[in-house]
C-alpha cells in the first residue's frame, strides 16, 4: 500500500501514533464517508483532552478510586517453583473493577463522550468483558448504552449478558455471519453510522479506524507503566520477557508499550491457536493472515483468496477475531515483538495450572498467555523473570470450563 519512503517516514512518527494514524504501512482510516466527520471530531477532542491537565487528573482519579489501580505485580512463587526456571510475575488486571483491563479504556472514552456532549454509547463485545466495562461506565456517567453481542458469544458468556442488563444496558444479539465478535462490531458500526450525531462508538480494542488504535492503546499503557516500576522495585532489573494474549491486542499493547525502548525485554503476543492450523479453526492472524482491510483498519486479516473474511475459532470469545490491531502488525514486521499461538487445550490446561498452584482463576483469554509462560520458563535462567499479563479473571468462563474440564483428571497441579 505504501512506498518504502512513506513507510519510513511514518515509522518515525508512529512513536506517537496520533499524527499519522499509521504504524509503518498499517492502520489508517477505512470507513464510509458518513463516519469520517465523527472520527475527525474524536481525534480532535482526544488531542485536546490528552493535553488537558484536568482531563488527566479526572481519569487518574477514576482509575485509582473507582477501578482499583494500581493493580499489583504478584510474584507467583508456587508456579515458578513448579516450572523450575524463570521467576514468574503476574500483572493482576483481573483485580480491577469489572474483572478485566477493559475498564481502563472505558473510563477514558467516557470522559471524552462527556466532553463531546454526546449522551448515547454503543459498543461491541466478544467475551463480554468490554461490554460489562462499557455498561459500567455508562451507568456511572448516566449515558444510554447499547451493546451488540453475537448470539454464539451470548450463549458461552451468559453471565456477562446478565451483568450488562443488570447495569441498565440494552444488550442486542447479533445473528449475522459467525455470530461472534466480528459480527457484533459490524452491527455496532451500523448503529453508529445511523445515530452518529448523538452517539459515540466505544470501541473496546486497539482496532478500527484512526484514532482508535492509538487512543485505546494510550488508555491502557498505564498497565505497562505500573509494571515497569513494580518489577524494578522487586527485581532491581527489567524482565527477560513480557507475555500477553492478543485478540485485538489492547491488553498486550498496554503492557508492551512502556517497554518498547527496552530492547532486551522480549515482548511475546499469544494468539488463539484454536483447534488446529486450518483456516476457520483458529484466530492466529500471524500464522494464516494476509494484509487486508477489515472494519476500518489495514492489518493482517484471516481471509480467503477473494478477500472474504474467514470464520475463526477459539475457546475464548475475546480472542476469536480475524484481524489484529495494526500496531501489532508493525511490531511483528519490525521484529520488536514476537507472536505465537496457543491452542484451546493448552489454554484450558494453563487455566487449571494457575488456578491450582496460585489460587487465581484466569480468564480463558489470559490463560493463553499463562500457557506460553509455562512453555518458556523452564528453559530460562532462575535469575531471569517473566511478566504475564493476567488481563481478566475467569468467573465469566465457568460455563465453558464446566463443560470442557474433567476435574479429577487434573488434580495433579498439587
Amino acid at each position, binding site marked *: *500500500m505504501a512506498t518504502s519512503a512513506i513507510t519510513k517516514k511514518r515509522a518515525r512518527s508512529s512513536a506517537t501514533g496520533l499524527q499519522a494514524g499509521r504504524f509503518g504501512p498499517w492502520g*489508517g*482510516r*477505512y*470507513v*464510509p*464517508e*458518513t*463516519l*469520517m*466527520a*465523527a472520527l*475527525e471530531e474524536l481525534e480532535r477532542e482526544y488531542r485536546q483532552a490528552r493535553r488537558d491537565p484536568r482531563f488527566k487528573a479526572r481519569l487518574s482519579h477514576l482509575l485509582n478510586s473507582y477501578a482499583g489501580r494500581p493493580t499489583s505485580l504478584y510474584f507467583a512463587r508456587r508456579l515458578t517453583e513448579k516450572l523450575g526456571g524463570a521467576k514468574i510475575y503476574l500483572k493482576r488486571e483481573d483485580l480491577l473493577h469489572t474483572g478485566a483491563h477493559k475498564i481502563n479504556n472505558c473510563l477514558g472514552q467516557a470522559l471524552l463522550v462527556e466532553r463531546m456532549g454526546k449522551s448515547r454509547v454503543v459498543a461491541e463485545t466478544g467475551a463480554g468483558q468490554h461490554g460489562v466495562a462499557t455498561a459500567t461506565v455508562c451507568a456511572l456517567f448516566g449515558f444510554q448504552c447499547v451493546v451488540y453481542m453475537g448470539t454464539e458469544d451470548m450463549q458461552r458468556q451468559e453471565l456477562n449478558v446478565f451483568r450488562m442488563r443488570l447495569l441498565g444496558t440494552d444488550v442486542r444479539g447479533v445473528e*449475522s*455471519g459467525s455470530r461472534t465478535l*466480528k*459480527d457484533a462490531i*459490524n452491527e455496532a*458500526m*451500523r448503529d453508529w*453510522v*445511523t*445515530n*452518529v*450525531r448523538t452517539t459515540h462508538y466505544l470501541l473496546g480494542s486497539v482496532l478500527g479506524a484512526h484514532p482508535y488504535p492509538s487512543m485505546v492503546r494510550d488508555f491502557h499503557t498505564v498497565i505497562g507503566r505500573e509494571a515497569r516500576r513494580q518489577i524494578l522495585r522487586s527485581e532491581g532489573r527489567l524482565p527477560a520477557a513480557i507475555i500477553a494474549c492478543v485478540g485485538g491486542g489492547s491488553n498486550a499493547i498496554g503492557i508492551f508499550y512502556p517497554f518498547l525502548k527496552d530492547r532486551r525485554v522480549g515482548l511475546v503476543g499469544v494468539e488463539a491457536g484454536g483447534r488446529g492450523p486450518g483456516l476457520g479453526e483458529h484466530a492466529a492472524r500471524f500464522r494464516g493472515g*494476509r*494484509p*487486508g*482491510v*477489515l*472494519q*476500518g483498519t489495514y492489518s493482517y*486479516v484471516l*481471509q480467503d*483468496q*477473494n*478477500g*472474504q*473474511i474467514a470464520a475463526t475459532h477459539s475457546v475464548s470469545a475475546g480472542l476469536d477475531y480475524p484481524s489484529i490491531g495494526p500496531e501489532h502488525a508493525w511490531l511483528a514486521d519490525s521484529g520488536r515483538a514476537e507472536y505465537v499461538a496457543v491452542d484451546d487445550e493448552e489454554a484450558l490446561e494453563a487455566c487449571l495450572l494457575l488456578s491450582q498452584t496460585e489460587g487465581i482463576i484466569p480468564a480463558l483469554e489470559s490463560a493463553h498467555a499463562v500457557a506460553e509462560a509455562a512453555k518458556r520458563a523452564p528453559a530460562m535462567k532462575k535469575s531471569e523473570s517473566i511478566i504475564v499479563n493476567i488481563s481478566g479473571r475467569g468467573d465469566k468462563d465457568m460455563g465453558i470450563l464446566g463443560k470442557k474440564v474433567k476435574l479429577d483428571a487434573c488434580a495433579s497441579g498439587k
Partner: protein
Amino acid sequence: MALRFTNRPALVAYITCGDPDLRTSREVALAAASSGAEVIELGVPFSDPVADGGIIQRASERALRNRVSLGDVLALARDVRRETAAGLIVFSYLNPVLQMGIESFASRAADAGLDGALVIDLPTEEAAQYCQEMRKRELATIFLAAPTSTEARLRRLAEASTGFVYAVSRTGVTGKRAEFPPDAEKLVSRVRRYTKLPIAVGFGISSPAQVRAVAGFADAAVVGSAIVEKIEANPGKEAQAVAEFLQQLLRAPTTELGMSVVQSGRRNRGQTESYGRRGAR
C-alpha cells in the same frame, strides 16, 4: 461508454451480483437497463458489509454461498457490456479490491468495459493510488458525500470524484424507508457548490414519489435495496419483477409536479452532460 444521465430523474439501479446466481444477475442487469436504468451498479458481495442494511446483507450471504468473487463480477460486467450501452460501475468494499490488487482491479475493470467504481469504505484520504490507477484508464472514481461531511470534506471528495457524486440521503445503512429525509436536498445543494458533476442521491429510495422528489433537486436517484428485495421475493422471475418495478418507478409524473421537475432539471442539464462526459471518459 460514458456515464451519462439524460433523463430527469435518471435512475441508477444496484444489484448484488450472484444473488441468487450470476446468470440471473446478468438477466436482471439487462432488464434494468432496458427498463430505463441509465447506470447499473454491480455490487460485489462481501462477508462484512458494514454499510448495508438487512436486505443487502442477506443478498450478500446468498451470493457468497455461491462463492461469487470480484473476479466473477468483472466477468459478469464484460457479459453485460456486450449487450447494453448503459453505464456500468462496480460497487464494492475495499478488501476484495485490495486482494486483487488495485492496479490489477483497474486494468481488469477497464478491459471488462466498466465505466467506473465506488469503493464504499475507501475515503478520499486513503485513495491516492486507487485514483491514479483508475484515472490512467479513464475509469470514473465515484465517492460518497454524507450529510455529516464537513465543507472541507465535501470540497475534497468533489475534487476526487469523476463521473458523478453519490450523495447519501441520510445517516445510516442502505435500506428502504417510507419517509424521505430532509437531509438529502440540503446535502445536494452543499455538494453543488463544489462540483458541476451530476449528483445522484441514494440510500432509502424505493417509491415513485421518492424518485420524483429526487428529480426536483438532483440528477439521479439510486435504487438498491428495493430492487434486491424484488429479486429475493420473486424466485424464478427476478428479471421480470425488477423490470416491472423500475417501469413503475419511472412512470412519467403528470400535473404541476412534473412541470417543476422539468424546470429545475433544465438548470443543470447542460453542465451535467458536458462535465459528466469529461469526468467519466
